[in-house]
C-alpha cells in the first residue's frame, strides 16, 4: 500500500493529473493509495488551513509547522475520517489541535482554554454608532484593506477569534464550528456575537461615513 502510494505520488505534479470535482471520490482514491488525489485535497485547502493556523498562532513559523503537520496527520489517519462530516471540518479540527499545541508550548500557563466559561458582557460595552458608506472597503487598496481586516481579527481574544474565523470567514456552520473547536453550540453563538460586535467597532473608525464625525453611543 505504502509503495503504491509512493509510486503514484510522483505523478502528482505531472500534467496527466486528473482533476476530480467530487470530494468523496478524491478521498476514496487517496485512501486507496492514490497520492495524486491526496495532493488535490491538499491544494484545495492549504491556503485556508494556513490562514487559520496563522490567525490562531499569530506566528509564521508555527503556522508553517501546523500546515505541514496537519496534512501529514490527515494523510496518516485518513481511514479514521468519518464520511458523515465534511472533510474540511475534520481537517480544521486537526489544524486547531495542532495550533493549540504550539500555543501551549510557546506560552505555557498563559493559554485560555477553549471550553472556559466566559462573560460575553454585551450589555456593559459602549458601542460607537456611526453610519458607514455603502461600499466602505472601496476607500482602500486591496493591500490596505487586507491589513485592516487582518489586524482587526488578530486583535480579538483567541476564543473569539477562532469562532469568527471558522464561522464567518471559512463559513462553517454553527454545528461544524462547535465540533471543530469541541465547544457547545450556545458557546459558539455567544462568542460569535461578541466577535462580530467587536470587529464592527474596530472597523467603524476606518469605514464610517466621512461626515459622521459626531456619533452617539449605545
Amino acid at each position, binding site marked *: 500500500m505504502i509503495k503504491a502510494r509512493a509510486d503514484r505520488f510522483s505523478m502528482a505534479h505531472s500534467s496527466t493529473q486528473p482533476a476530480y470535482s467530487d470530494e468523496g471520490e478524491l478521498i476514496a482514491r487517496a485512501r486507496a493509495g492514490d497520492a495524486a488525489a491526496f*495532493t488535490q485535497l491538499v491544494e484545495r485547502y492549504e491556503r485556508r488551513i494556513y490562514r487559520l493556523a496563522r490567525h490562531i498562532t499569530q506566528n509564521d513559523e508555527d503556522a508553517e509547522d501546523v500546515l505541514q503537520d496537519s496534512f501529514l496527520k490527515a494523510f496518516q489517519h485518513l481511514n479514521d475520517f468519518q464520511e458523515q462530516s465534511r472533510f474540511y471540518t475534520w481537517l480544521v479540527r486537526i489544524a486547531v489541535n495542532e495550533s493549540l499545541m504550539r500555543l501551549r508550548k510557546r506560552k505555557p500557563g498563559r493559554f485560555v482554554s477553549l471550553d472556559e466559561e466566559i462573560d460575553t458582557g454585551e450589555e456593559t460595552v459602549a458601542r460607537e454608532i456611526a453610519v458607514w458608506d455603502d461600499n466602505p472597503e472601496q476607500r482602500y487598496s486591496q493591500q490596505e484593506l487586507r491589513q485592516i481586516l487582518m489586524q482587526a481579527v488578530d486583535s480579538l481574544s483567541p476564543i473569539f477569534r477562532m469562532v469568527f474565523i471558522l464561522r464567518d470567514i471559512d463559513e462553517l456552520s454553527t454545528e461544524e464550528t462547535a465540533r471543530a473547536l469541541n465547544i457547545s453550540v450556545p458557546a459558539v453563538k455567544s462568542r460569535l456575537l461578541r466577535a462580530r460586535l467587536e470587529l464592527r467597532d474596530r472597523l467603524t473608525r476606518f469605514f464610517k461615513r466621512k461626515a459622521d464625525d459626531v456619533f452617539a453611543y449605545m
Partner: protein
Amino acid sequence: MSLLTCDQFLQELSDYLDEEVREDVRRELEKHMAECPNCWVMVDTTKKTLSIYKKLEPDPLPEPLKQRLMHAIQTKIKSPEGG
C-alpha cells in the same frame, strides 16, 4: 411600539443576521429596528462587516512554503510508516 430594549435586540443580532430566529421574533426585531436608528445602524454595519470579511480570499501560499509542504508529504508517503 416595540417592547424590546436595545440590549435585548443586541442579544438577538447574530441569530437575526444568520436568519436563525423564529418568525415572530424576526417581526419584533424589525419593528424595533424601524423605531430605533441606533439599532438600525448596528444591524447595517455588522452586516457590512460580515460581507467584507466573506469577500476576503486567502493569500496563495508562498512558493517556498508550498514546495516544503509537498516535499514533506512526499517524504511521508515514501516512508515505511507512511500511511
